[in-house]
């Protein structure tokens, strides 16, 4: 019986990991290609949540989870074109500062537009409740999220590994100089990567608005976890981030099962251990420009 409960926590952790993954994958892609740690990534997550709550009022939840990430991805174009682009070759500390500043500006902007108190959001009644699969209990809504995450993951993997777009991006991660020498401008690719990255963060925001509190600082709360996942997974590695996100979710679930007080600390301990054994992260590639 004890084992079944534990397994239930493991599976639940996998689902939670899927949620971290949506945010961390974009963060990792933007860093891998552009060399910029986007500390404003959480702000796009928060915007995704707020915009989806607004759209839900008029067009319903289904439209909201589609339109909100698209709207935020459009914002991502401006973000890349007018801010990020200036910092790809600059001292990394500058891009850290500018994205950190932007995160603050975004949070205060949300306070001004929507107010400091949290806004309410709820799951559509049809998606409420839990389902039993054998002996396991799942929230119906989280199963839906899991399905969406898997869909997004497959799409991103295909995009990166089976298209000419993906080949350029992967080459750009390793040898931007060679890509340039072949006469390919990386900038439009970077715009697309930023759109994809912040769009995924917004998608996570849209799906999590109904089950977590929607308030201005929600972005700042999530960026730390996403960052830990990226560090554990290793830079430049698609599967590294996937494994790390799932691992963080599972380790948290198991820790809460045995030692609840250590639940939130567990991911930092995991990061510590992984970095001790593999300083580059689980599947981190050796990237010349960062060595």
């Amino acid at each position, binding site marked *: 019986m004890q084992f079944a409960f534990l397994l239930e926590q493991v599976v639940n952790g996998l689902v939670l990991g899927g949620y971290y993954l949506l945010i961390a994958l974009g963060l990792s892609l933007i860093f891998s290609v552009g060399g910029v740690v986007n500390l404003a990534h959480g702000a796009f997550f928060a915007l995704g949540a707020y915009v989806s709550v607004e759209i839900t009022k008029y067009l319903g939840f289904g439209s909201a989870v589609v339109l909100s990430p698209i709207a935020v991805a459009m914002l991502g174009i401006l973000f890349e074109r007018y801010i990020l682009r200036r910092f790809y070759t600059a001292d990394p500390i500058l891009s850290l500062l500018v994205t*950190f500043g932007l995160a603050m500006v975004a*949070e205060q902007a949300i306070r001004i537009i929507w107010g400091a108190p949290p806004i*309410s959001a709820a799951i559509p009644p049809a998606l409420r*409740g*839990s389902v039993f699969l054998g002996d396991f209990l799942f929230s119906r809504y989280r199963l839906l999220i899991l399905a969406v995450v898997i869909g997004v993951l497959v799409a991103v993997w295909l995009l990166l590994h089976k298209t000419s777009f993906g080949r350029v991006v992967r080459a750009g991660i390793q040898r931007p100089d060679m890509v340039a020498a072949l006469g390919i401008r990386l900038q439009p690719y970077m715009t697309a990567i930023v759109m994809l990255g912040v769009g995924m963060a917004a998608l996570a925001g849209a799906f999590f608005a109904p089950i977590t509190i929607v308030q201005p600082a929600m972005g700042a709360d999530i960026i730390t976890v996403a960052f830990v996942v990226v560090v554990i997974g290793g830079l430049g590695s698609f599967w590294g981030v996937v494994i790390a996100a799932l691992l963080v979710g599972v380790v948290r679930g198991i820790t809460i099962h045995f030692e609840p007080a250590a639940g939130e600390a567990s991911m930092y301990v995991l990061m510590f251990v992984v970095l001790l054994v593999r300083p580059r992260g689980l599947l981190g590639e050796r990237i010349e420009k960062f060595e």
Partner: protein
Amino acid sequence: MTSYSRRTLLKTGAALAGASALGFPAIVRAQATRIKIGHLVPLTGFLGAIGSYAQLGVKLAAEEINQSGGILGKQIDLISEDSVNPATASTKAQRMIEQDGAVVLLGEISSASSLTIMQVAERNKKVFFSTGARSDALRGKNCNRYSFHCDIPNTVMVNAVGTALNQKGMVKGKKFFTLTADYIFGHDLLKAAKTFFDANGATLAGDELIATDVTDFSPYLLKVRQAKPDVVCCNLAGNQVTNLVKQYAEFGFPYPLVGFNLNTGDAWAAGEGNLSGTWPTVWYHTLDNPASKAFVAAFTQKYGKPPENHAWIEYVTLKLLAQAINEIKSTESDALIAHFEKQTEFDIMKARKGYFRSWDHQLVQEAYPFTVKPKAEMKDKWDMLALGDAVPVAAEPLEKIYPTKTQNPCEMKA
């Protein structure tokens, strides 16, 4: 290209991400005039949402007082800041007294931060009105002569909800599972809850202590299901209440969810159809009395939404403080303490007046259990709560729901 090692980048990034997790500062100051009053309330973190209501309430009170001539003929200069966490709260309180020249302090929602400000108040011999902190320990073993407590304490919340649950036959012989905030407030509330369960024939099937930064409750909800309780009871605070309520509705468990602590702001944020069960409250904007109606009208006109209970407590506290200073014509701590220890009664926008009990300095007042209105009966999205009868009933003394002198270990040093 400048070469920076990835390690440096990661370290800096982690430091910045860590800093951002601490919360961005949100500082609001009123215009500088004469009498300075320090106000601290969490504007970030898990209590930030309800803290923002508190700030609106205290600002409205300051404006109204200034418009009607101020205190002792001087305008109030309200210095209102984010208290952030217990350590920062204490530093800021000290600075407000020492450098800004605040004559009195008020505010706070977090019991942990309130405790550190109480110590600053005592050290500097300045009066502090702890407006929104609910831990019994603050009025009990940690009490001091300079600190007054305005919100209902944990014991009263447990008694208010417990009375309502008892009437519904949801206590005797029932198994409770509690989810408790892992800091002074939660520990204190769990203690009060256990006392209540023991006295009323209920058992505690399980308890989970939950760190205040938890946002995903799914692993805990799985543990709730393993325990198969009769009733699940929320002893959390702030954003965590909203998160739990939302996720509890998501999983759709058959066990009723009740709670011993809730602020209206958390209920409003929960979302349609998510909140159910029986909870306590200290005040609600639909209370039918003239003072309350006037306040709700003024607040709604200014901010475009009705006041939350923390807006109410801050407003009432600053108003009664101004009234007291005008009556005794002094801002001296000793004079203020002597005045409030006379147990003068104040209109606090409820059916019965309240007063600060002389020996433990807590505002003795009515409390209300509530259930959630069916959607068809709500006049607007703020009209969510169906208030039960005030406790204690009109025939009984207010102190009936408060801990007695033998139960409350408060000894004030002169």
